[in-house]
């Protein structure tokens, strides 16, 4: 401890530093639920793919689809172009399917769900009751409600407000259920945005995804409440591979939230998800993520390896999509939520805060593919590096010859806290017509000493002052989040940076 205290900057009192030291590496969701699990045998093979399909009682065409993906995946090589450094992943040394034993018989309603599971979500702040509470923000009944699909390891344990949504014509259910109940919709759209062959991790997901959420908003419907999925990894040595498919039919609207956490463990765990959004004429989808997977400890032990493929296809004219992400967790983040702006006058937006502390590494960004005329996109990315972390923004803006009169504006800012971390920017800009305008700007700086000094002179401790300055730096992105998430994200930004000063 003494050597730590020797390092203290002038003017920071001992108590603050000690508190900060004690809190360093604190992760609120690091506990584990003791529950009896049922696993598929370790490793990956055609048999495992068949087993997952069988457990989900899938039709033959789905199994064939999975097997085709698996056969392709075996031939593929893991991409290594990202600025990420991690040990080789042994794909045979983990479980691809784990479900609580109590879920063997599908519960017919939330009342039948194992109380242990319900308690888990309760503890996470996501009560699986049909009431309007999320993340501690109380909202009067009937105003803003959130329907939740809760995914626990490989299975969905329950979905709230299903009946009420059904009345509005909205389908919101686990994807495993959708494959059985709405095969026509799934067949038509699954893999149409992220094809099986898209990339190594998406192909792996196509073969082994076990559950996830399915949303269909019919023509002209404004989804009566926010939809959300909460992903929890609980079992050890288990990868989570979920797949989300959202279809917004003509003139519809939906706001979708996604949250995720995992227990604190010494061994890294794999998470490879695929999210596909199909947005038709005049429809709009807002997709917000607060990613708070276990980031590993201060020495970089454990944590989630997060390899995610997210893509929105604005198929119709005037379709609109907005990705908002707050990436605070995961040891490794490899994630590029993208927009294909196919319809004329369609719009894509990407707002991101990526925070990497301790030994976390994040390589994240977006792709804006402008195909239609007068398409617009906006990218606002805020990267924050602290400790020994590496944070990379990687993005592509592409204006095709036919995307006349299109616009893009990109802003990516990086903030460095401490001299052991790195912040990198790798944008690709491809402009193939002259009526489009593309603007890109990026800055890198450190936390402003004057701003810190000001806060400190007003009696804040250094930790609080940094959190405040960082929150100010992220403001543009935080404002884009739905209210429930904004509150959580704001405090997450502070928590993630704990222990990074001093």
């Amino acid at each position, binding site marked *: 401890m003494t050597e730590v205290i020797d390092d203290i900057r002038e003017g920071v009192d001992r108590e603050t530093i000690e508190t900060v030291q004690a809190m360093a590496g604190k992760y609120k969701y690091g506990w584990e639920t003791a529950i009896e699990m049922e696993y598929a045998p370790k490793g990956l093979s055609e048999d495992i793919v068949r087993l997952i399909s069988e457990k989900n009682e899938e039709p033959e065409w789905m199994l064939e689809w999975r097997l085709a993906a698996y056969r392709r995946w075996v031939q593929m090589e893991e991409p290594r172009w990202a600025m990420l450094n991690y040990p080789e992943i042994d794909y045979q040394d983990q479980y691809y399917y784990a479900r609580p034993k109590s879920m063997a018989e599908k519960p017919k309603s939330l009342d039948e769900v194992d109380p242990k599971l319900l308690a888990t979500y309760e503890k996470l702040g996501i009560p699986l009751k049909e009431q309007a509470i999320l993340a501690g923000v109380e909202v009067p009944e009937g105003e803003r409600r959130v329907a939740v699909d809760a995914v626990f390891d490989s299975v969905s344990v329950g979905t709230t407000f299903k009946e009420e949504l059904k009345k509005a014509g909205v389908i919101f259910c686990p994807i495993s259920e959708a494959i059985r109940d709405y095969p026509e919709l799934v067949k038509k759209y699954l893999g149409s945005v992220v094809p099986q062959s898209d990339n190594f991790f998406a192909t792996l997901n196509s073969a082994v995804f076990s559950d996830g959420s399915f949303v269909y908003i019919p023509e002209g419907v404004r989804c009566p409440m926010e939809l959300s999925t909460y992903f929890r990894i609980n079992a050890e040595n288990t990868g989570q591979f979920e797949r989300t498919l959202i279809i917004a039919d003509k003139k519809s609207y939906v706001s979708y939230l996604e949250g995720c956490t995992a227990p604190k463990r010494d061994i890294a765990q794999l998470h490879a998800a695929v999210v596909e959004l199909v947005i038709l004429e005049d429809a709009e989808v807002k997709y917000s993520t607060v990613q708070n997977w276990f980031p590993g400890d201060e020495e970089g032990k454990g944590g989630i390896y997060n390899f995610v493929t997210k893509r929105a296809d604005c198929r119709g004219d005037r379709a609109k999509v907005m990705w908002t992400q707050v990436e605070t967790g995961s040891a490794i983040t490899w994630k590029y939520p993208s927009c294909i702006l196919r319809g004329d006058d369609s719009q894509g937006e990407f707002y991101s805060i990526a925070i990497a502390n301790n030994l976390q590494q994040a390589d994240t960004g977006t792709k804006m593919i402008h195909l239609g005329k007068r398409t617009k996109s906006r990218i606002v990315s805020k990267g924050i590096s602290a400790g020994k972390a590496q944070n990379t923004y990687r993005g592509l803006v592409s204006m095709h010859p036919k995307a006349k009169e299109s616009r893009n504006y990109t802003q990516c800012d990086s903030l460095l806290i401490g001299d052991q*971390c790195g912040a990198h920017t790798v*944008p*690709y800009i491809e402009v193939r017509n*002259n009526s489009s305008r593309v603007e890109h700007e990026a800055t890198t700086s*450190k936390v402003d000493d004057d701003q810190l000094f000001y806060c400190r002179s007003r009696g804040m401790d250094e930790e609080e002052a940094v959190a405040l300055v960082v929150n100010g730096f992220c403001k543009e992105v935080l404002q884009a989040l739905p209210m429930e998430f904004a509150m959580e994200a704001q405090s997450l930004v502070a928590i993630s940076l704990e222990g990074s000063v001093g």
Partner: protein
Amino acid sequence: MSVAQVKQDALAARIADLSFAEKGWLAAPRRAALDRLSAVGLPGKRDEYWRYTDPAALNAPAAAPAALFDPGDEPQVFDQIDRVKLVFVDGVFDAAASDDPRLSGVEIERLTEVATRDSHWASGLYGALEARGQNPVSRPQAILNTAFATDGVLIRVTGQAKKPVSLIYKQGSTTSDVILHHCIQLEAGAELTLLENGAAAARLNTVMEVEVDDGARFHHIRGQGRAHERQAVTHIFARLGKESSFKSFTLSANGRLTRNECVIEMTGENAVAHVAGAAVGDGDFHHDDTVFLTHGAPGCESRQVFKKVLKNGATGVFQGKILVKQVAQKTDGYQISQSLLLDDDSQFLAKPELEIYADDVKCSHGSTSGAIDETALFYLQSRGVPKSIAQSLLVLAFLAEAISEIEDAEIAEDIRTRLESWLERHER
């Protein structure tokens, strides 16, 4: 056939007709380069570093023929500047056409003449900075140059050069395929302005290694162009000592394929590196600026300013990187790449990168692409300026930031005049 085998075969074909001269102290760095080249092979279209420029024409066993360019009575860039001219015709030094190379404070020698001289100062530089510049990205065309260069100049500057040294490259044959390698050493406190221009060859590969010692100042102004069919890959490798300054500006007009690589490493405190370029292309024009700037010491300043004006299907590429190492606190890095697309067929492809490991830095980059501002054009026309002149004015204004990087007012004016003349000739 495996990818590696294809690459090896392509390399064998590329170097089959090149002569590998192993003379004196040149033998060791050349042999080492040949080994390095065999290990990495030639660049491929699928290499990330060649994402936007197809290296096929540079890799081909023979140069595609390029018609000789007749400038008529049009003055050439730098014609008005008092300078020491060193002329190369198809890559071979032409003493008769050149000026007396004696200049106070400057030693000028020909690479092929000093190879056998023992303990020559350049023996420690030839291929050394080029080899350092191969990490983290390999630059096989530069390695090939080190191994097979047929001529070049060695310039050592010990004081203030009174006038610029000017390298003039003339093309004599339609199929000339030239590899030139220059080494330049600026000793502490020395200063030199180096000019380069000329059509050079159907295909040109140059490497210039520049060692700028503490407090020395190096100015480089280059005019590439006018001959339309030429293809070129050029490399500058520079290392900057304490409080030294390196400024390079390139004007490119036309050329079927040009790839200008610039690799600068600042190893001394408070060094300054500025790299700028103005490129104007009409039609079958592919121009690629690839810059890699390393801040390896505290307090250094770097600026990259690249502007491109593209029309009739021309392509502009910019790959720029600023790497700030952990020791390089108080870095000031700035990078801007902009293109003006005069019509719908032209394209601009950019990858401006920042890689930063120090926290007390000020780094920014910007990149824009778009058409000429219609309101500005309308304003000028409403004031009675004919459209074509208004357009030229706006284009020159767009390029001004890059030209202002040239310190010498006379040379800057000369460059501006050359650009105006190009715009006049390419109005349509």
